[in-house]
């Protein structure tokens, strides 16, 4: 049985899944930037001691799963989420959902995701998609990073739902349990909650590995990479930084641009003019992330590579850290009651 499902492409997978699932329960004014902002998606962390694909472990957004959870919770929408120990029960449960017309968010690994190009298939287990129907043996898939919907066979879907390794999805599915009427007032409150939480995560988090302090910290480390690691490994590390920054569709500090878009949309619900100015600041931060990526590419492609070039690279991050700190401070000062 095929159900009416409207696929919207997004820059980032979890934003997209969240937006599309909320739209299926009638929240038509949900957008990717709103989902990202209400879910407090903007983040930065470089985890010490940990290596991913033999490079530094850096994330530019919040932990997988949280954007959906926070956005729903802030809007007062109950969430259903379930992991499975057996492949059979995972499939059975999914089929039951689809039979009653319930589109389902799925966490999957991309290594065996057949429609992805080979170059993108690493053991990355925090990709998200919606399964919205079944035709014969084929599951109908809405992958938010794709322009159109696609499909996977029984076996293909099982393999990605039960990928192993870090963040193993264990067949995890999720969806909004029931709908609520979202008035402008509810949306307004959710937006404020999302912004306040993001302020805390970026400028009030203790330690110097996360938030704006984490960005500056990485910047200072980069300046030492050339001597400490040698040009080859330093280049690989920078390439990894760019790849983490440039997840699919988030090109050039893209998460910062999405956040800037969120603040513009927030302004429609909450006409505090500061929001528009701060939006511009995030655009600026995104632009410098972009410049930093270009500088990094110059180094890892061997066009440049002196210590001065590494210093420029590190200083970009230190500058970004300052700009984002000011932006979040300004957000923390907005008077919301009006």
């Amino acid at each position, binding site marked *: 049985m095929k159900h009416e499902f409207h696929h919207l*492409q*997004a*820059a980032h997978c979890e934003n997209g899944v969240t937006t599309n699932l909320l739209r299926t329960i009638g929240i038509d004014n949900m957008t*990717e*930037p709103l989902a990202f902002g209400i879910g407090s998606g903007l983040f930065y962390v470089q985890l010490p001691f940990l290596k991913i*694909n*033999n490079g530094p472990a850096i994330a530019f957004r919040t932990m997988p799963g949280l954007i959906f959870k926070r956005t729903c919770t802030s809007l007062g929408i109950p969430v259903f989420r379930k992991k499975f120990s057996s492949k059979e029960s995972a499939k059975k449960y999914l089929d039951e959902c689809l039979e009653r017309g319930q589109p389902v968010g799925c966490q999957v690994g991309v*290594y065996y995701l057949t*429609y*992805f*190009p*080979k*170059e*993108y298939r*690493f*053991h990355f287990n925090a990709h998200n998609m919606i399964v919205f129907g079944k035709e014969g043996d084929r599951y109908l898939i809405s992958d938010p*990073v*794709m*322009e159109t919907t696609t499909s996977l066979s029984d076996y293909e879907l099982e393999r990605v739902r039960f990928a*192993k*390794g*870090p963040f*193993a999805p264990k067949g995890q599915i999720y969806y909004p349990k029931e709908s609520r009427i979202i008035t402008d007032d509810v949306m307004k409150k959710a937006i404020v909650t999302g912004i306040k939480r993001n302020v805390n995560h970026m400028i009030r988090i203790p330690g110097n590995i996360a938030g704006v302090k984490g960005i500056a910290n990485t910047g200072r480390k980069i300046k030492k990479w050339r001597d400490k690691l040698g040009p080859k490994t330093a*280049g*690989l590390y920078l*390439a*990894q930084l*760019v*790849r983490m920054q*440039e997840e*699919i*569709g988030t*090109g*050039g500090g*893209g998460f910062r*641009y*999405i956040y*800037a*878009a969120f603040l*513009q*949309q927030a302004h429609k619900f909450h006409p505090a003019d500061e929001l528009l100015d701060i*939006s*511009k600041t995030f*655009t600026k931060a*995104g*632009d410098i992330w*972009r410049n930093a*990526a*270009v500088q*990094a*590419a110059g180094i*890892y*492609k061997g066009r440049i590579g002196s210590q001065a070039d590494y210093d420029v690279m590190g200083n970009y991050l230190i500058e970004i850290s300052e700009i984002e700190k000011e932006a979040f401070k300004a957000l923390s000062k907005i008077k919301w009651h009006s």
Partner: protein
Amino acid sequence: MKKEEIPQDDGALNKLTKEVVYAVDDSGNYTTELSTGWEVKAEALDLAWNEIDQRIANAKQKVINGEASPLLYFMELRLMDPGIVSAYTGFWKWTVKRHMKPSVFKKLPETTLKKYAEAFNVTVEELKTMNVHEA
């Protein structure tokens, strides 16, 4: 970033789909646009793959030299690390590392080899000989 500045370069993802990018229009409002890719990003990915190919080649040479068992080669070929091999096979990480010694690998029973072969998506014969024919 302004809408006109959105890069439209070639990238690996372009074979599959264009990506959504957020940028500002002439009046400063955010909007989305499709992009075919960005050179900077494509180069980072290329570099990562060159490194992987190098690691695979090194692993193969080590196996040929008798310094490691084929498990090392297949681990690299499948972009895994001992932790991921352990997750797919159910063996402890230190067991996986031990099985990477040629002398230990030679004595492994068929059932153990089968588990590895399954995890690497090859046959037991291919696992032993490193002869894989893939499209």
